C-alpha cells in the first residue's frame, strides 16, 4: 500500500463524508461535492476513491436498510474511522502551519 498519504480528491471525499454524517453514501457524496466545489464529479471516480479509502482504513462502510427506490438495492453508508479523522486533523494542521508562514500582504491581492 502506498502508505497513508491523502490525495487532494481523497481529502475532499473524506471531508464530505464527515459533513454528511449518517447520510454518506456514494450518490449523496457525489452530489454534495458537486454542490460545494461546483465541478462535475463522476460516480465512477467517487466509487473507486471510496474503495481506496476503505483499503487505507480511513472509512468504514455498512449496508443500510432496503428501500423501494433504487430497484430495492440497499445503500452502502460510509463513516470516517478514527484513523481517517486523525489523518484529516494532521493534514489540516500541516496546512495551517503553512498558512501561518505566509506574509499577510500576499493574500490581500485577491
Amino acid at each position, binding site marked *: 500500500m502506498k502508505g497513508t498519504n491523502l490525495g487532494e480528491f481523497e481529502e475532499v471525499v473524506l471531508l464530505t463524508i464527515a459533513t454528511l454524517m449518517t447520510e454518506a453514501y456514494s450518490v449523496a457524496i457525489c452530489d454534495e461535492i458537486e454542490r460545494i466545489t461546483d465541478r462535475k464529479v463522476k460516480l465512477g471516480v467517487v466509487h473507486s476513491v471510496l474503495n481506496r479509502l476503505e483499503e487505507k482504513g480511513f472509512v468504514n462502510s455498512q449496508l443500510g436498510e432496503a428501500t423501494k427506490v433504487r430497484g430495492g438495492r440497499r445503500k*452502502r453508508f460510509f463513516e470516517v474511522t478514527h484513523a481517517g479523522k486523525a489523518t484529516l486533523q494532521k493534514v489540516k494542521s500541516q496546512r495551517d502551519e503553512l498558512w501561518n508562514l505566509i506574509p499577510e500582504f500576499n493574500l490581500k491581492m485577491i
Partner: protein
Amino acid sequence: MSNKSAHQPPRWADRFLEWYCRSEILEDLQGDLYEHFERNTISKGKRKARQIYWLDVLKFFRPYTIKKFKIVNNITSFIMFKNYFKTSVRSIARNKLFSAINVFGLAVGMSVCLLMITLFMEVRSYDRFHKDADRIYRINNIYQSLDEDPNYFASTSIIAGKRLQEEVPGIEASVIMRRNFVGDATLGDKIIPISGIYASDDFFDVFSFKVLQGNPSTALIEPYSVVLTDETAAKIFDAGVDPLNQIIKIKDKDFKVTAIVEKPPFNSHLKFQSLASFATHESEESQRENSNIMGWTNMWMNYCYMKLAEGTTVKQVNERLAKISEEENQKFDRINIQFALQPILNIMTGPDLSNQIGDSIGGEGLWVFALLVFVVILSAGFNYTNLSIARSLRRAKEVGVRKVVGATKGQIFSQFIIEACIISIFSLVLAYGLLLVLKPYFLNLAPEIQQTLHLDIEPKLFIYFFLFALLVGLLAGLFPAILLSKLKAAQVMKGVSNTKLFSKINLRKVLLVIQFTLSLVFIISASIAFKQYKYALAFDLGYKTENVLNIELQGNDVDQVKSLYEAIPEVSEISESSHMLSVGSRWGSDIKYEDPMDSTSLWYASIDENYIPMMKHKLLAGNNFEARPLQKEEGEIIVNEATIKRFNVGTPDEAIGKYLNVDDKKLRIIGVIEDFHYAKISDGIECFGFRYDPIELYNINLKIASTDLIGTMKKLESAWIDFDPVHEFKATFYDDRLQEAYADYSVMFTLVGFLAFLTMTIASLGLLGMAVYTAETRVKEISIRKVLGATEGSLVTLLAKGFMWLLVISAAIAVPLAYYFFDSVILQDAVNRANIGALELLGGVLIIFTIGFITIGSQTWKAAKANPAETLRNE
C-alpha cells in the same frame, strides 16, 4: 414498449454487471446506478438514460470490481475434471449391463446419423466447384394449362433464354443448353457412341469446368463444333494423337473438335461426355424445317443457366422475366408459363422437378430421411436419459457427499454431462464401425443412389462426427445432470425417501411411451409401404406384359433387327414401339377435337400393327393399324375411352371415322381401346392414343415362348453382337422394368423398415434396462410378498402390469396416427392404392407387444423365481 420497462435499465447491461461484479459490492453499485438511471430518465429522457446506464456499466469494469476467484475456479474445475473422468469411467465399468445398453443403443442411433451427416455434406458439396457458384441460377418453368394444377419443370424454352440475353440487364453471362445430343462418333474404322449436351458459346463463362486444351471462349461458337471430355477423347483417338482441331463424324456430319475439357467432377449435377455448339442444333432444326424451335411451348428439352453480375438481385431478374412471360403468354389462351430462378447450389437438394438435365436427389426425400434419422437418435437419447434417471437414485449419495465437501451445482452438472459425453464418444467409435457396414447397403438400395452418391468419408467429417457425438452426449445427459445437480445435500444424507427426491419421475414413463409410439409408427409405415409395393406389382394394367422383352434399337434399322430375330425360334411374336409404357416416362402432344380453343395433352406411344394384338389390348370398336409402307404420311390414331369421353365424341362406335387434331395433324380415329394404365398406377388415366409414326419407333418388342429364359437371352444377345458390335445389347423384360419403376416404394419400405428395426431395437433395449432396474430395486419387496404367499404368476403380473400399460397407451396413440398419416397425407394423391388393412396396423402392435412381453417377462420372472432366503438374508 411497455410502461414498466420505461423504468427499467437495460436488462443485458444489468446481466453483464451481475456477471463481472464482485458480490460484495454488486448490490450497492447496482443501486447507485439505478438511482442515477432514474434521475437521468427524468432529466434526459428514457433513451439517453439507457445509453448512460450502458456506458456506466462498462466504465465500472475495473480491477477492483471484477470477481477475483475466477481464475482459481477454473483451475479447480480443471483439476476436478480428472476426478470426474475417473469416477465416470468407474461408474460405467461398475454397471456393465446398463453401460452396454447405453453405448450400444446410442451407437445404433448414431450410425444412421453419421450416414446422414456424410450424405448431407456430400450433397451440399455439389456444384460448389464453380467459380461464384452463389451467383449462378437456372430458369425453371412453371407450366399450367387451363385450370389444371401447375407442373414444375427444370427446362425452359429457347426463346426465354434468347430474350434473357437480349433484354435483361445485370447478367454477367448466360448459356442456353439442350439435352439429347446423341450419336455415334466415327473416326476411321472406330465407332464410339457418345452422348452430350448442346450448349451455346457462353457455357464456359457460366460454368467453371476445367478446359485442358483449346480456347473456351470460342469453342462453342461455330456450328458443328464439339468439345470432348478427356475421357471421351481418349476413347476416340489413339494415344499420342492430338485431338484438338481433328474432324470426327457424328450422325454423318463432320464435327470439329474445338476443345478438350476435364470430365465433369462427380459432384457436378451436370454430367456430359461431349458438348456440341448450340448453333449445331439450330442448323439441324432449320434443315428439318422445324418452325417451332423458337416456340414459347418448346420448353421440354432446353435449359438456361445464367451468372448474375455482382450487385444484381434475383428479384430484379425475376421482375424482368415476369414481364417477358406475360408478353408471351398473351399469345396463348389456355397455357400459362411462368419463370422461376433456382440457384445452382439448390439443384441437388431442391424441389422435385420434371425434365431434369442432370442429377437431383430431391429436397423432400432428404428432409424426410433426416427426420426419420432424427427420430431414431431421439429414441436412443431417451434411452440414455431414462436409464440415467433410474440409476440416479443410486448416485444420489455420491452427489450428497460431493456437495458436503463443497461442490457447486455447476460442478455436479458438468460432472454428469462429462459422463454422458464419455458414453457418447464410446458410442461414436462403435457407430463409425456400423457406418462402414451400412454404407454399401445404403448405396445399393437403388441404382440412382449409386450414380449420385459416393459417400466418401473425408477427414473433415471426423470433426463433425466428433462434435455431433458431443452434442448427443450433452443433450442426452442434460436432464439427468439437471436433476442430480439440484439435489440438496442435507436431504440426501438424511435419507429422505427416494420417491420424494424424484417426484418428477413420470417423465420416464412419458419418454418410454414416446419411444414405443415412434417404433410402432415406423413398423406400421414399413408394412403399409410394402403392401403398396406388392399391390403395384400385381396390379392389372389392362394389358399383358409377361415374357415380353424390349430391345432398344439404338439407331439400327428396324427391319434388319426384325429379320434378325425372326430367325430365332423362341421368339413367337415381334412388334415395334416408341417406348415402354407404364414405367414412368410419358410422351405427350397437344390434342384438339372440333372446338379449336379446347386443347389438352394427349399422351401417346407410336407402335406398329403387331403391337396391340401382342400386348393383348382390348379393342372396343374399330380396327388395328394396317401394315403400310414407311413413307406414307401419318393419318390414323387409336385412342382410349378417356379421350372420347373428354371430347364428348360419343360411344366408341360413333367415334370411328372422326378426326382429331394432334400437333396440327389431322388424324382419323380408326379404333378405340379399353382404358389401361399407360402411366404409373398412382396417376389417373387421361387421354391416350396409339400412333403409327415409323420415325419414332425406337424399341422392338419380342414375345418369348420358351421356358429357358436365360438361354434364350444369351442367344438373342449373341445375335445382336454379331449384328451390331458397337452398341451394347440393351434388353429388359417388361416385368423387370415395372419392378424397377416402383422401386421408390421398395426403397421406402427398405429404409423405413430398417429404421423401424433400429428404433425397435433401441426401445427394447431401453425397456430391458428399465425392467432389470425395477426388478433389482424391488427385489426385497418381491421376496417379502413371496414369503407372505404370493404366487410367481401374480408377482410377474404385478411387475409387468405397469410396463404393459405403457405399451397399450403407445399403441393407442400410434395406430390412429400412422393410419391418418398414410391415409390423408402420403397416399392421398395416389389414384390406385392398396387399402390399409387391419393386418398392417395390428401386425406391428403384435410384434411390439411380443417383444415387450418377452423383455419384461424374462426379467420379472427371474426376480419372482429368486429364493427369498437368498435375497432377504443380507440386511
